[in-house]
């Protein structure tokens, strides 16, 4: 198996640590091997970009890391929890409390205003409406949307929508945030401003970001860039000087 993870000190804690993760879809002749033995580490405070051509397994990998899919084999520990050891209910609860999501198409709920959209993760975690909205208000203010609390997604620009989506990903203070093509629907300047926010988030203590992207313009924001192809991580490079890190 190809080893693409960093050589880590034995006592080092990882936000994500995958070893030999495989995942396939279908059965028999229709079986497709989407992940072919993935080794990946993501450290707290790190922004890791996952890049590669369509169909290379990026989405499957983040689905496994976020406990949406179960791997077929291998081990995947996220925030110190072994995902394979959790049942479906525990995975759902873990996802709700510990992981934040930012999607390509923002995926805000169109009928809810910005404040309500950002409150959703807290409400899912059982918080009261009042405390959820207080916290959501604070987070929206941090991304300069304190004046657009009652705006519906359709009344916001693409950049504003993505900032609402980022607020939603942050509101419950998750330790891992997964962003799926966060800038692909944004113009260059807006994309950069969104990445600046995400970069700042990654620097928060104990928090890690995984960003799936095709957009080379934002590679400079990465601490490391993992290149995937055909279900494998073929290369991990430093985000700044693009040197191989393993």
């Amino acid at each position, binding site marked *: 198996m190809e080893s693409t993870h960093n050589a880590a000190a034995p006592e080092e804690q990882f936000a994500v640590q995958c070893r030999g993760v495989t995942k396939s879809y279908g059965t028999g002749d229709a079986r497709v091997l989407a992940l072919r033995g993935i080794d990946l580490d993501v450290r707290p405070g790190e922004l890791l970009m996952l890049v590669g051509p*369509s*169909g290379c397994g*990026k*989405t499957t990998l*983040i*689905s496994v890391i*976020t406990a*949406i*899919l179960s791997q077929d084999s291998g081990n995947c520990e996220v925030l110190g929890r072994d995902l394979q050891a959790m049942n479906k*209910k525990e995975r*759902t*609860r*873990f*996802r*709700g*409390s510990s*992981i934040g*999501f930012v*999607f*390509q*198409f923002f*995926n805000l*709920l*169109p*009928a*809810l205003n910005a404040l*309500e959209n950002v*409150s*959703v*993760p807290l*409400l*899912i*975690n059982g918080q009261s*409406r009042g405390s959820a909205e207080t916290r959501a208000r604070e987070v929206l203010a941090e991304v300069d949307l304190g004046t657009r609390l009652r705006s519906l997604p359709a009344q916001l620009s693409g950049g504003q929508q993505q900032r609402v989506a980022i607020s*939603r990903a942050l509101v419950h203070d998750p330790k891992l945030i997964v962003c*799926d*093509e966060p800038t*692909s629907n944004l113009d260059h300047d807006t994309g950069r401003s969104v990445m600046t926010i995400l970069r700042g988030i990654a620097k928060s203590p104990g928090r890690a970001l995984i960003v*799936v992207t095709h957009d080379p313009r934002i590679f400079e924001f990465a601490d490391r860039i993992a290149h995937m192809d055909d279900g494998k991580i073929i290369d991990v490079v430093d985000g700044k000087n693009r040197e191989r890190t393993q």
Partner: protein
Amino acid sequence: MLRLALKMLMGDRAKYAGLIFGITFTSFLVTFAFSYFCGFMTRGFALIAENPVANVWVMDPAVESPEQTINLPDSALNRVRSIEGVNAAWPLALSTAVARFPNGRFQPFQVICADDATLAGVPALKDGASPAMLRAPDAVIVDPGGTDGKLETPILKSDQWPSGEPHLNAPTRELAVGDELLINDRRVLIRARSDALPRYPPLPLLYTTFPNCARILLPEPHLLTFVLATAAPGVFPSDLAARIHDRTGLKARSSEDFKADTVRWFLINSEDVGDIAAMLSLAMSVGFGVTGVMLYMFTNESLKQYAVLKAMGASSRLLLTMILAQAGLCALLGTGLGLGLCGIVGQLAIDQANYPFRMMWFTPVVGAVMVLLVSLVAAAISARPVLKLEPGVVFAGR
């Protein structure tokens, strides 16, 4: 989250309005159809309802409804009167006769012969007429009995009882007090018009007394169809009916039981009722189909939103609760609007067209329960893809 679920529902105004409209339509259709059916059945036992004083109806053992009767021996009246617990008893006879109008046209009537002593069984009369005028020879009261345009007589005197050819196409007006009809070659004089309950099946009614009946009807061995009785104070009608049956061998039923028997008889014997029931079932099925499909489509079109919630950690139970809350709200609103609409349209139909509509206490209840049930079943069915949904579909690569 339930509040947000309802906001999600109402956020898409067009779909929300469509859903409410669909359920309102179903609720209206089901309740109206059911009330229409009840209206028919109520008209089926109009004769019983028209004699509210009578607690017990006594009849030939083979009779099951006022629709199909055979007469009793004349002695039955005295036999019933002699039974302990009977406060009063009086006769009532039903027959049919074909009446000829003055222009030569004819029309079958149900003839109702009332006791000439008490005139019990004569309905409320129009224009303040007194039932006592029925005691005059050949006096009758006519009533459309739920029909429309069947009681017409020529406007011109010259078209009435012509000596030559009948004047079938002469202009007509509604029968009025003072007009004459010919029954079995005997002239009868209309002394009043009544406000009797409409009948099912609709048939013009002709009320008169027993002596007049005996004069105008073809000779029959007996002219007694029912003996109507009131129970003495403290005696239950059903107990009295059982006692009358035991002592006389005749069939005796309390009014309420006889109404129920009549409904059952129509359900079993009337092909029209079967057709109506089939039509109503079809209408209800269409309504339920509309509701189910609309609810299903609404949830299905929101799958992506549910996938987002699922990815963010919403449990299947929470999502199911949200879907049921949305369906429940739509069902409640739609049912309420449908019932209100049904009441208004039903009342208009009664007022304007004398429509057989009767919204009894259980019709809205049954309608509401059925619509709620269908909504919840549709919600449960539409929840299945949500529960099976793989939240990974929210990622761009999927």
